[in-house]
């Protein structure tokens, strides 16, 4: 489902974010991406979404080599990928409901489907009562949960989550991770970049650890780290 082959990425500033990274994630897997801050987790997710292009190496996502994809097909790739962004990236002028509904509108879902599905997803992340708030009127954790709701409202093939619990309290975090697990059980491939040792340790899934852009660990039923 996701395959990176000798991928490297250097930003314009000269920062080497990824060095010769290869990894393979099968359909239906649940993978934690860990590593200290600045180790390149977000960069991996950006490359998978084709927000950035790699400098070297090849990347396949859902059967397409992303670098070769023509401009107009990129949106269709992205519709297969739900993504929770580290900085939320909500549309500031749209309400919570509209932010989530937008993803369904993009793929042309009819109005009644939107009207039934969005509230359901919002209830799932515990935001049923905030559906008409604008992102600026939400607490950090609430914004993060809107991002999570948006990421899986259209049941994507792949779910990428970048630090989905960074602003959530442990109880809510647990709820979110259980949710991700449930989504994973329906066949969705889930990749979670995180610093939250407790959820990694609890779930005991595959853990890939990056350090300065290289993979230093790929463990089948891993924990967050050796040293913590």
């Amino acid at each position, binding site marked *: 489902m996701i395959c990176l082959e000798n991928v490297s990425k250097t930003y314009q500033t000269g920062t080497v974010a990824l060095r010769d990274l290869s990894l393979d994630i099968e359909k239906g897997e649940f993978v934690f991406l860990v590593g200290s801050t600045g180790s390149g987790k977000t960069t991996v997710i950006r490359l998978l979404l084709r927000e950035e292009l790699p400098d070297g190496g090849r990347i396949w996502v859902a059967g397409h080599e992303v670098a070769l994809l023509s401009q107009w097909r990129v*949106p269709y790739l992205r519709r297969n990928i739900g993504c929770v962004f580290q900085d939320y*990236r909500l549309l*500031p002028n749209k309400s919570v409901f509209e932010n989530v509904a937008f993803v369904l509108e993009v793929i042309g879902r009819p109005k009644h489907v939107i009207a039934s599905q969005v509230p359901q997803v919002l209830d799932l992340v515990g935001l049923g009562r905030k559906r008409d708030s604008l992102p600026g009127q939400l607490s950090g954790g609430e914004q993060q949960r809107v991002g999570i709701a948006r990421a899986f409202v259209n049941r994507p093939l792949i779910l990428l989550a970048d630090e989905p619990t960074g602003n959530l309290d442990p109880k809510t975090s647990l709820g979110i991770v259980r949710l991700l697990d449930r989504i994973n059980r329906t066949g969705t491939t889930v990749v979670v970049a995180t610093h939250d040792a407790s959820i990694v340790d609890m779930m005991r899934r595959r853990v890939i650890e990056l350090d300065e852009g290289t993979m230093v660990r790929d463990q089948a039923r891993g924990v967050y780290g050796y040293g913590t």
Partner: protein
Amino acid sequence: MAANVQYVARETASNLWRNRLMTVAAVLTVAVSLSLVGAAMLLKQGVAHATTQWQHGVNVDVFLKAGVPVAQEKVIDQDLLQLPYVHSCTYRSQAYDYNEAKHLLTPDESQSLSASTTPASLRCVLNDPGQAQAVAQQFSGRPGVASVTYPSQAVHNMQQVTRILQWVFLIVAVILLLSASVLILNTIRLAIFARRREVSVMKLVGATNWFIRVPFMFEGLLQGLSGAVIAALSVIGLHLVLNTLGDSRTSNVFTQMRMPIGEVLATSAVVVVIGLVVGTVGSAFAIRRFLET
């Protein structure tokens, strides 16, 4: 073009409302700059009308000797009318000319005049004011004709001025139109720039370029339309003001510039179309670079 009508309508309306400041800024820019374009177009047409009026105003005055028999007067009149470039001639009695002179001159100057010393005259309106000198040449010195007067240098200047005025206003209109386009594009670009993150987020959740672009274009269309309608109303307002000025004092330049309401409406329509096009195309153009990658 996957965007359906309802989505576009809702999206456009809410964007216009939620980005009020930018909506107002864009509408204002369109309104102000297109008003100027419209006004210039109106003035150009006004001058065209006035020119026709002024040209009719160029007269050749054939002053008759005192005591010329009526028959001779008739002959002169007919000979004048036979010239192809003479439009019409009016006989003005001594009394009439005396009155006119008194009217035009200061009391001091007109003291020396009397009805009997003032000559009667034939005032001829020419089809082509450039021919005034030819008339003068042919008729001055004819029996019964005291003198023929016509504006010489002035006619020359007048023709040049009106011709050039029309050009000036046309050029001004074109320059204003270009300026307006630049200013409107500028405003739209700024407004979209302020929303570039929004555009990038839409792209990241899988929206196609058209899906993002269409509501922006409709926004631009509506902003352009609103601004242009305000501009068109200003043009019509200007027309009405000029008309009123034209009514209040008789025979001033404003009267001469009066034109049928049809032309004014046509000008307004042109302004509205320009607003629509610049708004829509401008938005499509401005959003382009934020849609790349």
